[in-house]
């Protein structure tokens, strides 16, 4: 379908963009458009104004800082997954970005856009949560744990724009994996698991697990994280991962029933933790 009518603004500065967004509550930010344009075409969204932030300098680039990697909101998935700074400093982000849709979508879709869209079925929100990223907006910094409020609802005020994300470097000893279960490249993850695991002396010292599509927001599998502490690789890991669905509220839809998602969360968490711990 052809989208409903809207106005279009390509602001020259972040401030101009913020003012335009603040002055019209039906206005939407346009980044790469790979989530928004399909919504417009299906007429599931009727914004009055699109504010195209794609050419704002402040939102571009990937910077290798001392203790974190700063990923500009407009960095595309394709740029992210190839970035030497990301691969070295926060490889989990590159692993997850490589699973987003297909090459053409990754050429346009952006890291910041997928976070600000706050779709719990998107791959990056669970990663941002697990890595305890910090969202840098036009006015403040928001920890990932406070950013995803509800389904498609980020903690952004009217006129507030996501500028970039600080992804902490976890340092030596950590291993990473993103395990995604989906039927086709373009389909959302039925369930996804982002795992970061620190190993020492043959056992798991610390684990961080983020779950994709297990509720209205991405969630941390806290029960698994604490159950994994100090656990040796092997059967004990499987037992710990059996708690993956604890505290989640997955939806039932065309693709899967909620109980199937709970089951998947356990299986995929087990796979993801083993892979992150370097065990095939």
């Amino acid at each position, binding site marked *: 379908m052809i989208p409903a009518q809207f106005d279009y603004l390509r602001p020259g500065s972040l401030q101009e963009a913020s003012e335009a967004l603040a002055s019209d509550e039906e206005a939407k930010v346009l980044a790469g458009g790979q989530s928004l344009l*399909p919504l417009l*075409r299906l007429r599931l969204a009727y914004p009055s104004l699109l504010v195209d932030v794609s050419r704002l300098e402040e939102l571009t680039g990937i910077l290798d800082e001392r203790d974190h990697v700063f990923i500009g909101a407009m960095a595309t998935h394709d740029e992210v997954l190839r970035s030497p700074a990301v691969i070295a400093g926060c490889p989990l982000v590159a692993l997850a970005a490589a699973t987003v849709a297909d*090459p053409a*979508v990754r050429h*346009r879709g952006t890291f910041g856009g997928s976070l600000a869209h706050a779709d719990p079925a998107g791959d990056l929100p669970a990663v941002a949560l697990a890595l305890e990223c910090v969202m840098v907006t036009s006015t403040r910094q928001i920890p990932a744990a406070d950013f995803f409020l509800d389904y498609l609802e980020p903690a952004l005020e009217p006129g507030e724009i996501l500028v970039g994300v600080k992804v902490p470097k976890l340092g030596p000893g950590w291993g990473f994996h993103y395990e995604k279960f989906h039927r086709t490249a373009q389909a959302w993850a039925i369930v996804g698991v982002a795992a970061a695991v620190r190993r020492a002396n043959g056992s798991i010292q610390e684990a961080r697990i983020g779950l994709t599509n297990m509720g209205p927001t991405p969630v941390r599998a806290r029960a698994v994280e604490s159950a994994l502490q100090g656990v040796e690789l092997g059967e004990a890991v499987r037992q710990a991962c059996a708690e993956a669905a604890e505290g989640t509220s997955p939806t039932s839809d065309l693709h899967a029933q909620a109980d199937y998602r709970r089951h998947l969360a356990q299986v995929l968490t087990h796979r993801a933790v083993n892979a992150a711990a370097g065990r095939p």
Partner: protein
Amino acid sequence: MPRIAVTVDGIRYEEDVEPRLLLVHLLRDRLGKTGTPVGCDTSNCGACTVMLDGKSVKSCSVLAVQADGSDVVTIEGLATAGTMHPMQRAFHEEHALQCGYCTPGMVMAAIDLLREDPDPSEETIRHGLEGNLCRCTGYCNIVRAVRRGAQSMGQAVTTP
């Protein structure tokens, strides 16, 4: 109405466009580039794939205004002086199409994946074409065509 400047298949155009005009409709309805089809309408099928500043995109998921100042290459821009691009010829020779609807997007996606890997394995090709659907399910011949196209583009394909 925003005015945009865009180069398509080597020719520069200036157009007044409604903000909601999709790139694929600019190409087809305004510039007559009907070689690029509209497939699924939901950015799933990849039939409308074109190159935007050298990278593959689904032109149903890009607004014409977003392409302002950009360089677009469609399937119609591949042949030179009446001679098919090696990838087009490979699709012809390997019978990599039945109905042909997905072919323009497949060819563009194939050329895009060679940009990163001029000597792709079958697995790399299948992975690189993930975003392009052939509902005649003629994938075997498509994969063969991409390997042949890569070969004739001057790159030896050695992996089985």
